[in-house]
């Protein structure tokens, strides 16, 4: 082939260009440190490295999530540990409080410490990590517990995704630790109550267990005698009694004892003496008996029967009943079904009683009673009127009581239409509507010359209904009438005495044991999760290293190889320049003269 200088020049330019290109490529890779500087350098490698970089970024984020999860779990574990020590301390206090050597004052200070523990556990419940509350569910910016332990959070699970498809719940369910049944708040609360008062008390049903012995020759005609202890002597024996022959409506006495041991003259040739039983006599102890006279000559032995009714009574209080009060509850009012509907409460052992507390009764059907006392000249009297018989929704007869329901009159049949019922001279009542039911009750006070407008009534409770009374100091009393005998008078100042004593502490210890076991379980669970999150983090870190290596293999320039190539390319380039300089320069003209 014929070669011309231009061919040569073209060749030289092309070859130098190639050398330059090679140098430029090597230089680019060396200066950037990357083998792939644009996607056309290695399209498959680019996709791989872009993908790998994305995975690597994600992996790094998983590490952040793992760290964050670990912090959550550690914080929660730490809170649970504190809580466990609170529960442990409370358990110690419960055992200490049950010790009989403690006085009420000691128990008060122990209760105060338990209250402090309660506040401490509330504070632990309000623990925060990085400005978020640990035990608030998803309400991480709301204080979860108020000072009473009321919960404002929720039970939403917070999860961290710490690996592909690996979601871990990092928060605790507060209701399983603090607020749920049998958890620490309830246990501490119960303990506080038990230390400071009785939550639920059964009464001391009868005051004394002395027996009454009767002697003499009874000449009277009374069918029943009721003897009541009226006062006690300094040595605790009975000093005086009073007696009633009409079921306690009126009393005779008190009668002081004579002789030693004292005997009491009950009248009509009958005398009584007391022999002490397990419980000492108290004022108000009653004994009811039917004298077997005339001709009574034998001894009677009568158990004290102060509580005529055999109703069961319980008392609850919560939470601030003063330490060791003696509560006496007295039934003073009953309805036509022999349910106790009014009581009085004494907080000084029966010395003074508060006002009558009534049980809530239901309203009868819309019905009112009118009364007419324009010709009434009797004393001012409280009347209770009750529908006794009803025909086609209208009362046909009524009964009434003038002693708060203790005794009721014989049925009074209505006269005329609408029927009018005459209760006493000049006093009559009528009903304005015709939807009456047996047991509808109406109360009013009759005074001389009174003219009556309509008054609403109350519905008598069904026989045997339990009634509940709320007293001061958060006392609540429940009269259970289930064993009441029909027609029996119960609200005759029956008294029930409640002597608070420390009970329930054993249950509290057991409850706290359960709380501690639960907390231990939760701690174990969170500890295991912490380990899992940390193991995951370690794994992610080593995976990250692997991925970086892989990415580096794909993306990074091989400096050693490139340096060698650079040396070669530079050498080639310099050689080409040298050769070209020599070959271009001379032509034949240089040799012509």
């Amino acid at each position, binding site marked *: *082939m*014929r*070669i*011309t*200088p*231009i*061919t040569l020049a*073209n*060749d030289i330019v*092309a070859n130098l260009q190639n050398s330059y290109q090679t140098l430029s490529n090597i230089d680019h890779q060396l200066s950037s440190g*990357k083998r*792939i500087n*644009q*996607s*056309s*350098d*290695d*399209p*498959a490698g*680019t*996709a791989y*490295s*872009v*993908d790998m*970089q*994305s995975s690597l*970024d*994600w992996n*790094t*984020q*998983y590490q*952040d*999530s793992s760290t*964050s*999860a670990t912090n959550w779990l550690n914080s929660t574990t730490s809170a649970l540990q504190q809580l466990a020590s609170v529960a442990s301390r409370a358990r110690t206090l419960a055992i200490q409080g049950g010790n009989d050597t403690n006085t009420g004052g000691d128990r008060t200070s122990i209760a105060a410490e338990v209250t402090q523990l309660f506040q401490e556990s509330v504070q632990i419940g309000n623990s925060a990590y*990085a*400005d*978020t*509350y640990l035990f*608030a*569910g*998803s*309400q*991480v*910016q709301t204080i979860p517990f108020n000072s009473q332990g009321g919960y404002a959070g*929720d039970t*939403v699970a*917070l*999860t*961290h*995704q710490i690996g*592909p498809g690996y*979601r871990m719940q990092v928060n605790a369910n507060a209701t399983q630790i603090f607020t749920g049944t049998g958890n620490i708040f309830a246990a501490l609360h119960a303990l506080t109550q038990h230390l400071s008062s009785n939550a639920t008390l059964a009464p001391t049903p009868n005051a004394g267990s002395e027996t009454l012995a009767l002697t003499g020759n009874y000449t009277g005609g009374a069918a029943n005698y009721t003897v009541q202890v009226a006062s006690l002597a300094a040595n605790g024996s009975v000093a005086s009694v009073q007696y009633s022959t009409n079921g306690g409506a009126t009393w005779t006495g008190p009668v002081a004892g004579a002789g030693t041991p004292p005997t009491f003259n009950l009248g009509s040739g009958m005398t009584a003496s007391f022999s002490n039983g397990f419980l000492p006599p108290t004022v108000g102890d009653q004994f009811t008996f039917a004298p077997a006279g005339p001709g009574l000559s034998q001894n009677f032995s009568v158990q004290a029967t102060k509580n005529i009714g055999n109703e069961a009574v319980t008392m609850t209080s919560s939470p601030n009943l003063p330490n060791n009060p003696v509560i006496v509850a007295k039934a003073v009012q009953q309805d036509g079904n022999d349910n106790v509907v009014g009581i009085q409460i004494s907080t000084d052992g029966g010395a003074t009683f508060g006002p009558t507390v009534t049980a809530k009764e239901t309203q009868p059907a819309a019905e009112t009673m009118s009364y007419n006392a324009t010709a009434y000249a009797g004393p001012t009297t409280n009347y209770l009127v009750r529908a006794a018989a009803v025909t086609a929704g209208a009362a046909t007869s009524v009964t009434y009581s003038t002693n708060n329901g203790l005794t009721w009159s014989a049925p009074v049949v209505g006269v005329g239409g609408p029927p009018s019922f005459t209760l006493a001279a000049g006093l009559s009542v009528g009903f304005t509507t015709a939807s009456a039911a047996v047991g509808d009750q109406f109360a009013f006070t009759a005074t001389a010359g009174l003219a009556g407008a309509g008054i609403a009534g109350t519905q008598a409770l069904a026989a045997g209904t339990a009634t509940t009374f709320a007293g001061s100091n958060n006392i609540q009393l429940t009269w259970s009438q289930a064993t009441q005998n029909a027609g029996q008078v119960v609200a005759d100042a029956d008294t029930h005495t409640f002597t608070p004593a420390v009970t329930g502490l054993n249950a509290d210890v057991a409850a706290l044991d359960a709380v501690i076991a639960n907390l231990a379980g939760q701690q174990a669970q969170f500890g295991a999760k912490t380990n899992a999150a940390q193991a995951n983090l370690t794994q992610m870190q080593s995976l990250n290293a692997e991925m970086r290596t892989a990415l580096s293999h794909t*993306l990074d320039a091989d400096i050693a190889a490139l340096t060698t190539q650079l040396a070669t390319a530079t050498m080639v380039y310099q050689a080409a320049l040298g050769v070209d300089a020599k070959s271009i320069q001379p*032509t*034949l*003209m240089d040799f*012509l003269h």
Partner: protein
Amino acid sequence: MTTIFSALNTANTALQANQLVIETIGHNVANGSTPGYSVQTANLQAMPPYTVPSMMNHVGAGQIGTGVRVTTIGRGRDALLDGQFRYENQYAGQYTAQNTTYTQLQGILNEPSTSGLSARMSAFWNGWQALADDPTNMGARAQVQQTGVALASSLNSDAQQLTQAQQTADNYVTNTVTTINNLASQISNLNGQISAVVATGQQPNDLLDQRDQMVDQLSNLVPITYATQTNGTVTINLATQVPGSTLLQVARPSEAPLVSGINTNLLVASPMGVPTYADAQPYIDTAVIPSLTAPVGGQLGAYINLRDKVIGGPTGLISQLNSITQALVQTVNTQHALGFDLNGNTNKPFFNVAPPAAALTAPWSTVATVTAANITVDPAIVANPQAIAAANASGAVGEGSNAQAISNLRTQVGAVATPLAGFTIQQGYDNTITQLGSIAQQVAANDHAQGVVMSSLTAQRQSVGGVNLDEQMTNLIIFQHSYSAAARVVTTVDSMLDTIINHMGLGN
């Protein structure tokens, strides 16, 4: 019987012929580096011999040469090589244009890097996961907001630069048409001059060189077919590569050629359109070439293809980027709408579109108006990161499972009714990058290979038509000596005449 003067005459032809040859050598040396110049050669031929008439002998000593003459001055040119060169040249133009543009496109998408779309997307997903871990942390919320804004801006910027690149390609199309028209006009002028010279029976070597040079340039810009007519003019038709055929095919046979004699039929460029002829006929006659609507080959074909298929068009980069954007907006908005923000609001979008497009409304799967150019983060979220819906229930401010669900969208394959069915968003983008890189790699290889082909063809043409100074010098010496020798012949004859005239005779 010849006369002594005939020898002088013979020497004279030699002097003249050698002088002409030396002049040609001088011309060659002068144009040794002129682009497109072909080496010229003065073709010598012995003049017709003279038969010496004789009465005695009808066959004398023989015919006597009468000297030398230059018959033609030829040029070193190989029509076959020219054809091959111009065929390959349109590939060279095509590949160079593609290579340049693909390099630019890769620069726009800028992968792999720490600042490309992929890195932004990665940061965006990670931001969501960080938020899921700590949904009430305003820093984490701001992070999601800012990575969202960065992602949207990155898409906006890519879309804008791609549109710019498309506009640049269109400008190239217009400029290329202008250059084609200029060259066509100049070639038609040269056709006129050449035909005038050829009519006189001579060969206008330098005009031919100029015209060949222009046809070479033209062949780089656009595929052409050409034919040289007997009157010396060249007829040029606009052609195209046809898929499945290695031959160039005339694109619109029914149309007058681009250059025919002294006439031209120039092209008209229209913005974003395929150039037409002045009579509004399209470049391609689809009745003849049904598979094409635009020319393939040369710079013109390359830029039209880049503009309409690679950057624009339904499968172009802008469309691919729009598909990725729509998949992103659809999946993220759909999930975001399920969540609740710090103030208990729900059913709100995370991404939205910039005006003048109408703001997106539920259902959030409707994303037809979203493009890479107009995607934004919803103004409510830009205004206040509290509006980011991280929780899965109203008021559950510390709960981040919706944020986690959004973060996990990065692995969601074939989101329902998205344009990327079967791929994750990252994979969709990877595919775009890989495809672009693969083609760019192939184009660069093509460009390099074509450069080698062109070098080889140029070398071959140089081999035929290049000026070798050594060769010219050698010839110069040869013809200088020939000239000297001829002069010596004259001197000798002169001496002979002197002998005859001055020294011969009785008088001496």
